[in-house]
């Protein structure tokens, strides 16, 4: 009795073993296939379309492409659920779910829609394409404004030093060296300032652009520090001459200090106006 039960157990084990081996083997040797035709929305065949098929259970993919008549065939497929992906140049990619049964020759025809174009959005090719000249103009403007910015920042250093040395150069001070130092620093400030201003003035404008925001404040302040940068050295030269003759600074030259302070303040405000968002 025990022997009989043992034989039955062995037999069942053999059957289970054979079954477990035979299922995948049969699947791998499946004659299942998928074929079909790929057409555009107008019914024309799409040759050389890329066909990819992914087994949704295993994530394994196979690829092929359509022939000259837009047909494809994928042989030796394991039964199961698949995602068929079809892509071709000039068409939008399409995905189709396909179930393949054992031994079946499934057909899946796919129609591809044309790719949306900018013309579909009402955008003409002229609007979609820029020109190298437009970009060059923007690049030149940007480059010149960068130089304007750098030179402007550098000019702030001797400007501060000029203001700082003004206490030794003016008033009751009779120090000649302080006056020359003030003159030298003021001259350096003026040179850097006008170089910086040149790049801002000569930077090309971009047609159709309306000025908005803090750049308007920056430009408005230039109407104060610009004339100030011209007037300050003229008044300074007169004051220098008067001091050199041992005279007290008088007349229009006495406005040199006030004009210089207003100019320096407007210049500082101009830098801050484009540095921080108010």
């Amino acid at each position: 009795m025990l022997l009989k039960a043992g034989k039955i157990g062995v037999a069942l084990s053999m059957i289970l073993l054979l079954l477990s081996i035979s299922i995948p083997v049969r699947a791998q040797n499946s004659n299942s296939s998928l074929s079909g035709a790929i057409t555009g929305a107008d019914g024309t065949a799409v040759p050389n379309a890329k066909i990819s098929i992914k087994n949704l259970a295993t994530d394994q993919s196979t690829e092929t492409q359509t022939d000259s008549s837009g047909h494809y065939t994928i042989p030796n497929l394991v039964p199961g659920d698949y995602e068929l992906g079809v892509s071709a140049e000039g068409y939008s990619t399409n995905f189709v779910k396909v179930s393949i049964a054992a031994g079946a020759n499934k057909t899946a025809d796919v129609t591809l829609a044309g790719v949306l174009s900018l013309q579909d959005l009402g955008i003409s090719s002229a609007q979609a394409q820029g020109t190298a000249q437009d970009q060059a103009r923007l690049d030149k403007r940007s480059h010149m404004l960068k130089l304007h910015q750098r030179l402007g920042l550098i000019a702030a250093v001797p400007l501060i030093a000029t203001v700082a040395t003004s206490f030794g150069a003016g008033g009751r001070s009779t120090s000649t060296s302080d006056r020359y130092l003030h003159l030298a620093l003021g001259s350096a400030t003026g040179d850097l300032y006008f170089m910086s201003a040149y790049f801002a003035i000569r930077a090309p404008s971009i047609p159709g652009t309306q000025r908005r925001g803090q750049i308007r404040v920056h430009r408005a302040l230039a109407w104060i520090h610009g004339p100030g940068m011209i007037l300050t050295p003229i008044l300074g030269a007169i004051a220098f001459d008067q001091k050199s003759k041992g005279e007290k600074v008088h007349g229009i030259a006495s406005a040199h200090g006030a004009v210089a302070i207003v100019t320096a303040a407007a210049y500082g405000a101009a830098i801050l106006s484009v540095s921080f968002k108010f």
Partner: protein
Amino acid sequence: MHKKVILAILLLAFPQFASADSQWILEESTLIYHVSHPLHQSEGVSHAAKGKGVCHAGQCDFLIAVPVKSFESGDSNRDLHMIQVARGGQFPLITVRTHLPEDASSLASIPADLEIQFAGQTVQYKQIAFQHVTKGSDTLIMGTIPLTLTDFKIDPPSLLALPVKNEIPVRVEMKWRQM
């Protein structure tokens, strides 16, 4: 007899209707880029995007285009600088393409693979989540695209010798209508 003919015509016609193409039109949009600089933050806003979606056989293709120069930050100087660094003179449009299954409109959050053309470069952004709300006949889509300057080979613009951060996230709010 007539009833049978009408029924036959309807049965023949029904699959055609079922597989008919549908379209989506972008009605309104707000795109906001955010730039971070050590001295301040700035945002540029555009409402000028145009977009369309075409659905066929359960799949939808979307195309959205927005002019680079349509973004306004409140400062024309900064806007012109942005156009320059983004090579907007030569490549005046930003285009976004995506491909979605038609039934994605039933999801609250739509994961979309985006193909973005900007500054002469084409970059793929995978699985960008967009929130989706239906209000009457309109569909609202909201999300943030994590753009970076390096993705598009853009040199970071600088102010006072300090460059802006590489990340320029773009907040998207769009109202679509199915036609």
